[in-house]
């Protein structure tokens, strides 16, 4: 049986004015994979995620999630999305934020409480659960946002820069958690502008100017670029791309 492609993009093109944020981009992510989307600022990572989630309509091409062409409402209950901005209610407490989004996903209160404990342990905010989000630091708010995205145990999650502003220790525990989720057949697409973080992913896609320069396992990319780390690999790919164009 063919491996299920949970995420599939075919020739995505998205223009903002004359600028192509996505330029004929195609990719596919099999189920249970931790896919790292790396690239510099402005490479098109967020636009790609928003287009895949159905929040932006591509000018050309199509996106499929869990077999459904996007945008599609049937995917929503199985989809987790963590936007790049905090997207949390500053005037509510951490728990109130989780409870509200839990209700939107139709979770029972007891279930929300159980999941909240688990996720707040992960993001190390259990002792702040009653604190108003607006009084937390930027990094903490991002952690609340991550907890909200994973609250309903999605089958597929898009996490846009979940580790930005997070300290190294906690960042490591996040990546451990993402790997554990992938082992449970959850598919994750995680963006990062820290290329070395992509080392933790099963598949890495390097994005540059709305195009995918390459994708593969980290070791395959190192072999392909004859480099010893992903930072160097990315620079080599960029240089090759500039020579070509």
């Amino acid at each position, binding site marked *: 049986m063919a491996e299920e492609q949970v995420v599939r993009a075919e020739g995505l093109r998205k223009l903002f004015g004359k600028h192509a944020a996505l330029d004929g981009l195609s990719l596919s992510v099999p189920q249970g994979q931790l896919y790292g989307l790396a690239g510099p600022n402005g490479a098109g990572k967020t636009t790609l995620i928003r287009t895949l989630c159905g*929040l932006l309509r591509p000018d050309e091409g199509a996106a499929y999630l869990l077999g459904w062409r996007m945008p599609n409402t049937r995917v*929503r209950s199985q989809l987790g999305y963590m*936007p790049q901005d905090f*997207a949390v209610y500053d005037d509510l407490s951490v728990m109130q934020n989780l409870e509200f*989004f839990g209700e939107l996903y*139709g979770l029972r209160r007891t279930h929300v409480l159980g999941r909240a404990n688990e996720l707040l342990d992960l993001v190390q905010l259990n002792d702040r659960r009653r604190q108003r989000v607006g009084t937390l630091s930027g990094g903490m708010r991002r952690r609340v946002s991550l907890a909200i995205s994973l609250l309903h145990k999605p089958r597929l999650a898009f996490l846009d820069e979940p580790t930005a502003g997070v300290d190294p220790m906690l960042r490591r525990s996040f990546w451990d958690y993402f790997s554990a989720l992938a082992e449970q057949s959850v598919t994750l697409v995680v963006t990062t502008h820290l290329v070395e973080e992509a080392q933790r992913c099963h598949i890495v896609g390097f994005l540059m100017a709305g195009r995918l320069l390459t994708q593969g396992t980290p070791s395959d990319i190192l072999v392909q670029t004859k480099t010893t780390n992903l930072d160097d690999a990315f620079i080599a790919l960029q240089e090759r791309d500039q020579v070509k164009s």
Partner: protein
Amino acid sequence: MTSLAVMKNVLRRIARDIRTLALIVILPLFFVLLYGNTFSGSYSHLKVVVVNADNGLASVRTAEVGRVTLAVHLASSFIDALDRGTFTVVMADDASQALSSVGKGVWAVLVFPKSFSNTVVNEAVRAGGARSFKFEGNTVTVLPGDPVDVPLTTVAIDDSNPLVAQAVLAGLDAAFAKVLDTQQSSLTVKSLLDVRPLYEGKIKMLDFTAPGIIGFAMTLITIMLTAMAVVRERTGGTLTRILIAPVSAWQVTLGYTMAFSLIAIFQAVELFVASTVLFHVRFVGSPVAVALVIVLFAVGLQGIATLISTVSKNEAQAMQFVLFLLIPSIMLSGVFWPLESMPASMRLFSYAIPLTYANSALRKVMLTGYGLGELSFELVVLAAIALVTLFLSVLSMRRQAYTA
């Protein structure tokens, strides 16, 4: 120098924001045009229904040929003398039917009795002394007769707006005075009129304007709160997060509508209680009818606010759009100035403003005590506005998720 840099920066940022820039340029001009076109300074098109039962004949005693009957048609002269710039005159036959129409879009009803001409001429002669005039080619002298019972001209007047009622009476006085002048008499206008104010003069200007002011306060608070909340939700990213969850734009819009309608209802109760307790504003109707008007009105306002949030990139823009809506609301909805006195072109805008219908309905309930049956037109329009804006706000909600 630092202040100059700050000033330059503020102006440069505004210059980059085309919508704000457009509003800055257009708003003042818009207000002036609105004000100038709406408040012309004099009332016009005030509807007056006239029942003319006057047979036009006056029977007088003369020194030369005894009693003669003259065809003078004074009621017709009076009707002709009514200033058509101020009044829209509608003739009717049935007096009781005409009298019942006062207050329902009719500012005054005049019923001339059958012997109006006869009475005026005889009373004029009696009050002014013998006089001569031509009769069948001969000059005859009309002699004062015995006083006659003066059958008064009934003037039923809608005094819900004391200023308009005054203007109507002044207009009628002027027309009567013109006719009486032709009779060279000292007869006064008042002696010929039986003025019956619909509300017996009990309505103060405050009573008349209070329903509109309460409606305006609701418009102001509801639209501002809702528009700001939706814009904040969108710019903060939480709206995208909500709409990516398995909920429909309908459910989200309904949630918003219920929340802000509850707030609007609470505020309306506060406004009504404060107005009646502190300022004894007249409230003779049913609170249930008022509640129904308020709920429909609030839902419509909420829908409009959501639409405003769609076209506003940020809270500052939302605020300007709100102002763009609020000023015409207070000027064109008939709160202070009767709709019929506005130019026809401005009246078209009035009919598009929800406050026009809320004001009319609240006024009917509060001042007159009308029930739901008499409010059916306003309720249907408010319900239609609520439904249409609710539908459009669902579309707008869906669109906002994609543009956040």
